[in-house]
């Protein structure tokens, strides 16, 4: 499996340092990766993983240090040089042109000659070949913006392979993938490894590290703290190396004590801007003191369900909160009205919906609640009150750094998420809608976020959780509903189901295990 010891490392970094202004993102980092292996890198948010890989790919320039590729000292001043050295990278945030086709994205920068036609034709052939070889099929003529995230990621991988990369870097590739997609990705990676390619994988998920990597490095605060053989370590040990303390890897919660239904949804239908029906008669209810988890492959209506309930997409049907029907379109159906009605919402996309990135943290802590009388004095806003409130919440939610005068953009993903959670949970809502609460968040923060959600449940509130992480759904929910193609395929209790069964439902297959316990969790 691992290459013999005497071969030269595919990648060797020596003494890499990089500072962004006063922030030392990488400190004297050295690492060797053998050819034909999968090497994992883990670390908290902001530990410097992405920075290190961006340096290897020539996207950033290191302040100091040397890079050796296959044993030869290689200068990588820009991505062109990295590509030449046989390095391909799949960034955490994809670098794709949204309104281009797959083919166009693949050939961009790697065209043969001045005219497109021959390049496109050649790429079409190569893509077909790659698709067969690595299970990497994507419609070459589809526009990127029409593709699911999983497919977009395949395009990124195809881009690298098209450039004949021998070294592939993947930065948090599974953060946005469904379990099925993630499994698929790992099959692809295994295939690539068999072909002798070298892979660096950055992830927050220890399960993935354990499952697929040969060796793993741990980063903390810009430094490389350890490199170990995967076979010789445990998740608990890695977590401790990462965070510097013991981390609870499972959610710790007592059984739910569900009360009366707080949120009742009946026959909810929603048609999006392009005329596609996204919700096809969804019915569900969430009781006081319980977490209802919605599992599903993304794009099956979960986002729309949150948008409708959160008040920024129109729908038909009936929704009652504490028995009171709320309007689903027209006046009184916007997000503001929902908040007044006791529905709080942690949106799936914190950067585009949950936060105003250039706003200060304290401004963001008031966002959506800025018309609250507590934050206003007559015509003017009471900024002092907002700031005090933000300082307090940031402290309680352990947002780092706890400085309300930093813009949201300068917090890491996990800390951004904490700001949103603090804002929504601390309003003490009747219903909390949560979308992808831990996407891209490190395990230390995940632990904290899960605890907070459970704490809210235990105080008797109704929580609707949407997540593509089946692990998260299974460990956090008191009851699980699976969505497929705009409908609820069925409900399960977490103790009575498993990933396989949920996966079948998520794929739209009801089959033999038909509805083992509809409503059983209500008891």
């Amino acid at each position, binding site marked *: 499996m691992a290459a013999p010891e005497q071969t030269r490392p595919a990648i060797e970094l020596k003494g890499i340092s990089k500072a*962004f202004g006063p922030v030392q993102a990488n400190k004297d980092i050295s690492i060797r990766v053998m050819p034909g292996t999968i090497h994992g890198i883990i670390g908290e948010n902001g530990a410097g993983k992405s920075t290190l890989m961006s340096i290897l*790919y020539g*996207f*950033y320039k290191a302040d100091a240090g040397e890079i050796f590729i296959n044993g030869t000292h290689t200068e990588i001043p*820009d*991505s*062109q*040089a*990295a*590509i030449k050295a046989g390095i391909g*990278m799949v*960034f955490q945030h994809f*670098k*794709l*042109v*949204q*309104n*281009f086709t797959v083919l*166009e*994205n693949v*050939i*961009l*920068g*790697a*065209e043969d*000659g*001045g*005219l*497109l*036609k021959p*390049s496109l034709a050649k790429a079409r052939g190569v893509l077909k070949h790659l698709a067969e070889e690595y299970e990497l099929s994507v419609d070459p003529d589809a526009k990127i913006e029409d593709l699911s995230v999983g497919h977009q990621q395949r395009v990124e991988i195809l*881009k690298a392979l098209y450039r004949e990369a021998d070294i592939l870097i993947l930065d948090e590739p599974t953060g946005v993938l469904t379990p099925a997609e993630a499994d698929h990705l790992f099959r692809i990676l295994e295939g690539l490894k068999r072909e002798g390619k070298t892979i660096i994988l950055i992830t927050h998920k220890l399960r993935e590290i354990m499952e697929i990597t040969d060796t793993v490095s741990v980063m903390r605060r810009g430094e490389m703290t350890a490199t170990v053989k995967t076979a010789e370590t445990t998740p608990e040990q890695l977590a401790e190396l990462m965070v510097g303390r013991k981390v609870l890897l499972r959610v710790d919660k007592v059984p739910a004590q569900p009360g009366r239904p707080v949120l009742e949804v009946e026959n909810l239908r929603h048609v999006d801007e392009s005329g596609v029906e996204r919700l096809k008669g969804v019915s569900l209810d969430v009781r006081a003191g319980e977490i209802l988890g919605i599992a599903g492959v993304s794009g099956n209506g979960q986002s729309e369900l949150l948008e409708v309930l959160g008040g920024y997409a129109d729908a038909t049907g009936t929704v009652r909160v504490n028995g009171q029907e709320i309007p689903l379109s027209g006046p009184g159906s916007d997000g503001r009205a929902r908040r007044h009605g006791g529905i709080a919402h942690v949106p799936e996309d914190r950067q585009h919906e949950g936060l105003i990135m250039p706003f200060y943290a304290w401004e963001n802590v008031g966002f959506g609640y800025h018309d609250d009388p507590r934050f206003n004095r007559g015509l003017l806003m009471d900024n002092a009150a907002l700031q005090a409130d933000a300082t307090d919440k940031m402290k309680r939610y352990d947002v780092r750094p706890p400085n309300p005068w930093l813009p949201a953009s300068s917090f890491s993903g996990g800390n951004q998420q904490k700001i949103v959670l603090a804002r929504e949970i601390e309003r003490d809502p009747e219903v909390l809608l949560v979308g992808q609460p831990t996407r891209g968040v490190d395990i230390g923060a995940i632990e904290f976020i899960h605890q907070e959600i459970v704490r809210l449940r235990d105080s008797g509130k109704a929580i609707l959780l949407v997540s593509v992480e089946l692990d998260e759904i299974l460990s956090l929910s008191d009851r699980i509903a699976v969505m497929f193609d705009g409908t609820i395929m069925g409900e399960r209790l977490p103790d009575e189901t498993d990933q396989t069964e949920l996966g079948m439902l998520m794929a739209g297959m009801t089959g033999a295990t038909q509805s083992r316990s509809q409503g059983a969790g209500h008891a």
Partner: protein
Amino acid sequence: MDFATILQVLDSTVRLATPLLLACLAGLFSERSGVIDIGLEGKMLIAAFASAAFAYYFSQNPVAGIGPIWMGLLMGVLASLAFSGLHGLASITFRGNQLISGVALNFLASGLSVLVAQSWFHEGGRTPSLPDEGRFDGIVLPGALGPADAEAAGRPLSELIAQANPIQQIYSELISGHSILVYVAFLMVPATWWVLFRTRFGLRLRAVGEAPEAVDTAGVSVTALRYGALVIAGVLCGLAGAYLATGLQAGFVREMTAGRGYIALAALIFAKWRPWYALMACLLFGFLQAIALRYQNIDLGAFTVPVQFMDALPYILTVVILAGFVGKAIPPRAGGDPYVKER
């Protein structure tokens, strides 16, 4: 409206649309690469001045072998290129605000053209009237009726054309007889389309206006692409300015672009940054203006439509069409943002 009148209005449309079209395509290249260009007006203006000034200079001091008009054209293009370069320096190299840079260039052109003209020619900020060799002539296409036929027949050209068959009328009046820059402008439309959608450069250009980070990580220089786009924009604006001063007119007059750069910008948005739509938009603007110029005082019996209304009509119709038919225009996504890797 009889046939001849329709032809004349369309003929006028072509002339009025040409500078708009060139400027609009210039803006298209620039904005497709992610650099917003409200300096079209300024580039046209400085090119109009430079082309007229040098066409005049070289008509007085001839250089053997090169017509003064070509020297004028060259200098006009160079002047416009210099402005483009300045815009690039500010908005690409120094990652400045593209809007401010464009506004500044418009001011600069407006002041500099007059200042220099006054200092060179002492005619109050205009150039002297250009002699014929300093102007672009109309080109008579093969088979079309032209001034030569008129001379031979001893009758005015318009009369000759009016008596020809309709096809010949269209050919001679509408299609033939424009200056070379008109044909260049119209040919630029398919050329632009081809470059944009059929060549490697075009692919990269479109990409850099949508997602510069994708271009960068693909190993292509964002800076070089954007400068490339600005060079093309500079050349096209140069042609537009030269057409105004040496094609349509016989010299430079202060502020002679008269807001056409802004109209071209409007046309660009109208066209949703696409070349064929740009042609349509510019022709539409030209047509509305031609109509408004021709029918200034419409007498409706009891009531004369005031000239001011007709004057504003092209603008009113633009708003109506925009609101009624065009809908939302989505600009290139990276437009206006300087590319900063270390976000």
